[in-house]
C-alpha cells in the first residue's frame, strides 16, 4: 500500500509538472459485460474432474454473470521530447472491496527510432496480444477475454520488472522492429494486489528472465502486414509442488519446493486492411522439472487465438462482424498452471484443455464507445456447450 501511495503522489507531481505544457494525457477504459452459458458440458469427465479439484464455477462460465472488471486509468507524460513516463493503474471492485493495483509503470528514454530504453514494470514483449490489447475492453473487437494472455491465469509471463530496449530499422518497403527485455518475470510485483500465485511465482522469490521479439511491418498500399516472433526464457522459477485438488499453507515448512525452468515462443501474424483484418497468434511453452520431483521431466503447453474481422459501416457507424477461434492444450498434471494463491493457501486446480469457435460483431456507437455481441460454441473442455455475451466498452 505504501508503494501505491508513493506511486499516486508521483503521478500527481508528474501531472502538475507537465499539465500546463499540454504534454500529458490522462485516459482510461472499462467494460460492462453480461454473459450466459447453457447446455451440457462438452466433456463430462473433464467437468467432473474440474469440480473434484475444487475449481470455481466462474472459471467454466456456468450460468449467467454480469461482470464489471473495474477500470484502468492511464497516464502518459512527455517529460521532454526524449523522455516519457507511462503509468497505468487498475481499479477493481471485488467482493465488496476496491482493489487498486499498478498495472504498469515505466520511464521511456527515446534516443532515436533505432534505440530506446524502458525501465520499470512493463508488458512482456511476448506476442502481439500481450503488448497491444487488454484482456477486456475497448481495444478488443471481441468480448471474451483471451485467457492465454490473462495475467491471473499465468499461462505466460505477462509483465516484467526490469529493463527493455526496443527500436526500428526502416527500409523503403518495411520496418524491422525489435524488443529485448531482462527482468523479473514471475516474481511478486503486484504492489499489494492478491493475484494468482501462478502468474508471478513464489512470492518473494527472484526469477529473472529474458524475452525478445522481432517483428516486420510491411505497409502495402492502404494496409499493413505484421509478422512477428517472440521467445523467452525464465530459468529459475521457485514454485511449490501441490497435488491436484489439494491445498497447503503458503509458508508451510513442509512444502516441497519445485524448481522449474520455463521457455517459450510466440509467433504472430496480422493483416490489417481497410476492409478486413486477420490476426493469429500462437503461444507454446515448456516447463522443465529441474530436480525431477514430479512424474515427468517436462510439461508442454500450446494455445492459439485466430480472428478474422470484416470492417464495414451501418448508418455511418463502424460495424465489425468477426469469427474467432481459441484453442488451448496443456500437458496433464502440469506442475505450475492452476496453482492459485487464496488467503495464504496454495490451491491446485485442474487445468483443462479448451477450444471454442466464436461469432460476433462490434458496433462503434460514437468514437470511444463500442457495443459488442457474440455467441460461442465450445468444442472441448468442461464448459457448457454454448455461450452468449454482450458488452459495452468505452475509452476516454
Amino acid at each position, binding site marked *: 500500500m505504501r508503494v501505491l501511495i508513493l506511486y499516486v503522489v508521483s503521478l500527481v507531481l508528474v501531472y502538475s509538472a507537465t499539465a500546463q505544457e499540454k504534454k500529458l494525457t490522462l485516459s482510461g477504459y472499462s467494460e460492462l459485460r453480461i454473459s450466459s452459458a447453457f447446455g451440457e458440458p462438452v466433456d463430462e469427465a473433464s467437468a467432473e474432474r474440474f469440480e473434484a479439484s475444487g475449481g470455481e464455477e466462474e472459471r467454466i462460465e456456468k450460468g449467467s454473470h454480469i461482470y464489471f472488471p473495474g477500470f484502468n486509468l492511464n497516464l502518459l507524460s512527455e517529460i521532454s521530447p526524449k523522455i516519457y513516463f507511462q503509468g497505468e493503474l487498475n481499479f477493481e471492485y471485488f467482493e465488496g472491496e476496491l482493489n487498486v493495483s499498478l498495472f504498469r509503470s515505466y520511464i521511456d528514454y*527515446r534516443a532515436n*527510432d533505432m534505440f530506446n530504453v524502458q525501465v520499470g514494470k512493463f508488458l512482456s514483449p511476448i506476442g502481439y496480444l500481450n503488448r497491444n490489447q487488454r484482456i477486456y475492453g475497448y481495444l478488443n473487437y471481441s468480448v471474451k477475454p483471451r485467457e492465454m494472455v490473462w495475467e491471473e491465469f499465468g499461462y505466460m509471463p505477462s509483465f516484467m520488472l526490469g529493463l527493455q530496449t526496443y527500436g526500428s530499422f526502416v527500409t523503403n518497403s518495411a520496418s524491422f522492429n525489435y524488443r529485448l527485455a531482462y527482468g523479473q518475470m514471475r516474481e511478486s510485483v503486484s504492489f499489494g494486489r492478491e493475484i494468482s500465485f501462478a502468474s508471478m511465482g513464489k512470492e518473494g522469490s527472484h526469477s529473472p528472465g529474458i524475452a525478445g521479439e522481432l517483428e516486420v511491418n510491411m505497409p502495402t498500399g492502404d494496409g499493413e502486414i505484421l509478422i512477428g516472433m517472440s521467445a523467452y526464457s525464465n530459468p529459475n522459477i521457485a514454485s511449490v509442488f501441490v497435488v491436484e485438488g489439494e491445498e497447503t499453507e503458503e509458508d508451510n515448512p513442509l512444502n516441497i519446493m519445485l524448481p522449474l525452468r520455463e521457455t517459450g515462443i510466440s509467433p504472430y501474424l496480422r493483416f490489417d486492411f481497410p476492409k478486413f483484418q486477420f490476426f493469429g497468434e500462437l503461444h507454446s511453452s515448456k516447463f522443465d522439472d529441474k530436480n525431477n520431483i514430479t512424474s515427468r521431466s517436462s510439461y508442454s503447453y500450446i494455445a492459439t487465438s485466430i480472428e478474422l474481422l470484416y470492417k464495414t459501416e451501418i448508418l455511418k457507424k463502424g460495424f465489425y462482424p468477426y469469427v474467432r477461434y481459441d484453442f488451448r492444450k496443456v500437458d496433464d498434471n502440469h506442475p505450475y498452471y492452476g496453482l492459485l494463491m487464496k488467503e495464504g493457501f496454495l490451491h491446485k486446480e485442474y487445468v483443462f484443455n479448451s477450444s471454442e469457435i466464436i461469432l460476433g460483431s462490434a458496433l462503434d456507437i460514437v468514437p470511444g464507445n463500442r457495443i459488442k455481441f457474440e455467441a460461442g460454441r465450445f468444442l472441448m473442455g468442461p464448459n457448457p456447450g454454448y455461450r452468449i455475451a454482450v458488452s459495452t466498452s468505452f*475509452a476516454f
Partner: protein
Amino acid sequence: MLLSTAVISARGQTEDKVVVIVNITNPINTLDKSEAKFYYLRTIRRTWPGLDTPIRPADYSMANPVRESFLKNILRMNDSRVASYFKQKEYAESLPMPQSFQSEEEVINYVATHNGAIGYISLKFFNASGNRVKSVFVSE
C-alpha cells in the same frame, strides 16, 4: 507543387482538396499518399528522418469537410476507427494522441511552430496562408 496548385485553383476544384503540411524545417519535401498516411499515423516511424524529432500529428476536435475528406481519401478510416487506432498507439506504444484544434488557422499555427508537426488543411486555405508551412502531399 505550386504550379499544380495554381492549375487546380484555376479549375475551381480546390474545395475538396486536402493538403498535408509539415513544418518548414522538415527536410522531407514530398510524400506519396501511402507515406502521408503512415507518417501521420506513425505506423512505421516515430521520428522524422533527418530531423530527430517526434512526429506530432494535428487533428480537428470537431467534424468538418477537410477532416471528412482526409479520413475518407487518405487514411481510409472512419471517425471511430481513427479514435481506436490512436488510443491503441497511446496504450501500447506510449505515443501521445494527436493535438486537436478547432480551425485550420490553429492547425497551421501549430505546424508552423512545431518542428515535428504534421497536419492537414484545405488547399484553398493553404493557398491563402503564405509560406508558413510546407506542403508535402495534395490529395487527388
